[in-house]
């Protein structure tokens, strides 16, 4: 595990060039769909897509979780399943132990507006139902950006943090709708900013999308996105 201050600017050496997530090599439709929807990062950093959506995340294999109501989700995300759950900045390939089982963080890029967690889970032989997904990314700003809002959509519930501060929670059985949940105004500081999401899915499809909106509610761009390098 590393801290924000230790994030390096070098390329994702281990990940670069990989075409598919390791466990997704397993045969079956899920792996093919994963290839369609997600890919391993091939560059050190990337940029928001044309509509401002953040394309790069590092995601933990799902943790079993029940309940998508506000109280249930808040209890789930405030329960520590592994050490430093709300502060960790994971690297690709890092592992954590939850309830005696080992789960792995995976860096992914998406070419879509969203990240498909259903196929992500399937690729690792996991179920996306009754599951908690942790997703982390790092937004690097060339200068301070004030008065912006994190805008997310998720299937189903989700809670989001910007630099450690909880800024959005949306609850219940819901589709991923662009800008479904929008935070109050936040300030992105110059340099790296950690964006963390916890998506709690009850059943069926699971995905999320996230972008920032500027003061005029337009997609925010002008920053880069990276995840922490894999440990060498």
């Amino acid at each position, binding site marked *: 595990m590393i801290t924000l201050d230790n994030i390096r600017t070098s390329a994702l050496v281990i990940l670069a060039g990989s075409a598919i997530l390791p466990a997704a090599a397993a045969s079956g439709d899920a792996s093919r769909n994963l290839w369609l929807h997600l890919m391993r990062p091939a560059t050190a950093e990337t940029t928001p897509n044309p509509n401002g959506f953040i394309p790069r995340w590092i995601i933990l294999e799902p943790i079993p979780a029940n309940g998508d*109501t506000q109280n249930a989700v808040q209890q789930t995300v405030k329960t520590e399943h592994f050490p430093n759950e709300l502060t960790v900045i994971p690297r690709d390939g890092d592992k954590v132990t939850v309830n005696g089982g080992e789960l792995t963080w995976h860096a992914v890029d998406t070419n879509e507006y969203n990240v498909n967690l259903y196929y992500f889970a399937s690729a690792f032989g996991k179920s996306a139902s009754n599951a908690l997904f942790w997703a982390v990314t790092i937004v690097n700003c060339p200068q301070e950006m004030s008065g912006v809002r994190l805008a997310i959509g998720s299937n189903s519930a989700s809670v989001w943090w910007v630099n450690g501060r909880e800024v*959005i929670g*949306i609850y219940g059985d819901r589709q991923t709708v662009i*800008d*479904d*949940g*929008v935070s*109050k*105004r936040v300030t992105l500081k110059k340099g790296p900013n950690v964006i963390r999401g916890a998506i709690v899915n009850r059943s069926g499809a699971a995905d999320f999308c996230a972008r920032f909106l500027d003061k005029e509610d337009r997609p925010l761009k002008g920053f880069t996105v990276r995840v922490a390098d894999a440990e060498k």
Partner: protein
Amino acid sequence: MKPIRHTQSLLSVRSIMVLAAFVAIWASPAFALDGQVRIHDPSTIMLCDGKWYTYGTGGTPLVSDDGWTWRTGTRASRSGAAPDVIRVGDRYYQYISHGAMIWSKSLDPNSPDYGWQDGGNVFGSEGPDDFINPIDPGAFLDPTDGKLWVTYGSYVGYTRVVELDPKTGKRVDSKFTNVAVNCEATTMIYHDGWYYLLATHGSCCRGADSGYNIRVGRSKKVTGPFIDNMGIDMMEGGGKLVCGSGGRLIGAGHFGLIDLGNGVQKFSLHWEADLDRGGASVLDVLPVLWKDGWPIAGDNFKEGAYEIESVRTGTALELAVEGVPVGGPRSRGGRGAGLGGAAPNERGGGEGRGGAPGAASGGQGGGESGRRGGGFGGGMFGGTSRGPIPPQDVAQVSTNWPIGNIDIRMSNYMCQAQQKWTVTPVANGGGYLGSPYFKITIAGTDRTLAVGEDGELVALPAFTGGDEQLWRIDQLTDGTWRVTPKFASAAKELLALSAIGSSFATLAKFDPASDKQRWLFKTP
């Protein structure tokens, strides 16, 4: 043709009746408008240096600082029946029945620019046999070419339009055009390529027996012909209803457009009889709505309990608390359970879809009642055998709500307590054109919608009367509502309640072209 002296005699009778009606003093009810609002035939309400002004028959002057609470103002230098006022350039022209015109550069008697100047007589009968009673003038500045016009006439004879010189307010030539018949209190407005002739049908001055009602026809030319929605020319009695009697108010007359910009239009009028003020004739202001190319009277906001729904998202404003289903939590029924099975708070037979309502048979795991089919004995679709489910008791479900401030968000409306708002006018809270300011609280509680120090919405534990807790609610021309905090309603950059995303509301600069700041107030 009837002799002019006939209508003149009627006029004098009317004036006597109107003046007599002003003698009594009545307590002011909450609506419509507050303070001293007794007037007949009000001129179009005009804004001058931050105050609102109108003048009625007999010279009755009314003035208001905010458009809600009115008081007696200062009489102009001349008076008569049914004047109208229009601002053109740096002048306010006042036209009075039978053609007198006066003008001033201010309506505020304390202004150095105040002072009514005599402009002479600018319209009237064109001869002894002219079929017109030249009263009730309505001035109109054409936004397409800057030309100034005045219409006038009465309920016996023609309504006529003549052109005026914008620089002097006087008539430009002897031409005239008759555009309607047997109307009073006419005026014109322009909207989306059409000229609309607003007129008052019926008779006045008989209190609650007055049939005054505001009608409209439209034309592509300022000189008509003005045709109503059924193709009837206003020269032949046509006119689509804009505003008639309703509630405790009888006899609507003297339309005067007040275009506030940003998608908000209102109009001044008088009611012949306000039943809550003993049947007195009173001033009022109502929103203008546009439907299928025709103006109709909207409503000033009425207090009550509402769901507040965003036009942009279809989601409803609510406290950011855990919602509880009405009737209590309930699981899905067993697979194929049909109409039998669990009641609220009773576990169903596990996840799965039951049969369709009334299905003849259920699948495996269905209860006996489901397999019989046809009965509403409970189950996934059958409700509970306990009878009607009462509305959610806010006192019960709010026990788990945080004691202090609560964030505001939006969600699907599910008839839950945190989604029902009571909107109440605030005594002594001031007002705006046509309405008082309101407080917005969760129904059955004192939790108050407010603007927090961070400029975002918040629910305070209790109403304390601050400007950040007072709301102006204006009906837009499409019938939806704009909600503005008092502290920001007069700001240079108008801030309004705004849906941002599907599940969040904030304050943002008002954009009349967007659905983001359009709201529906639905009866919950």
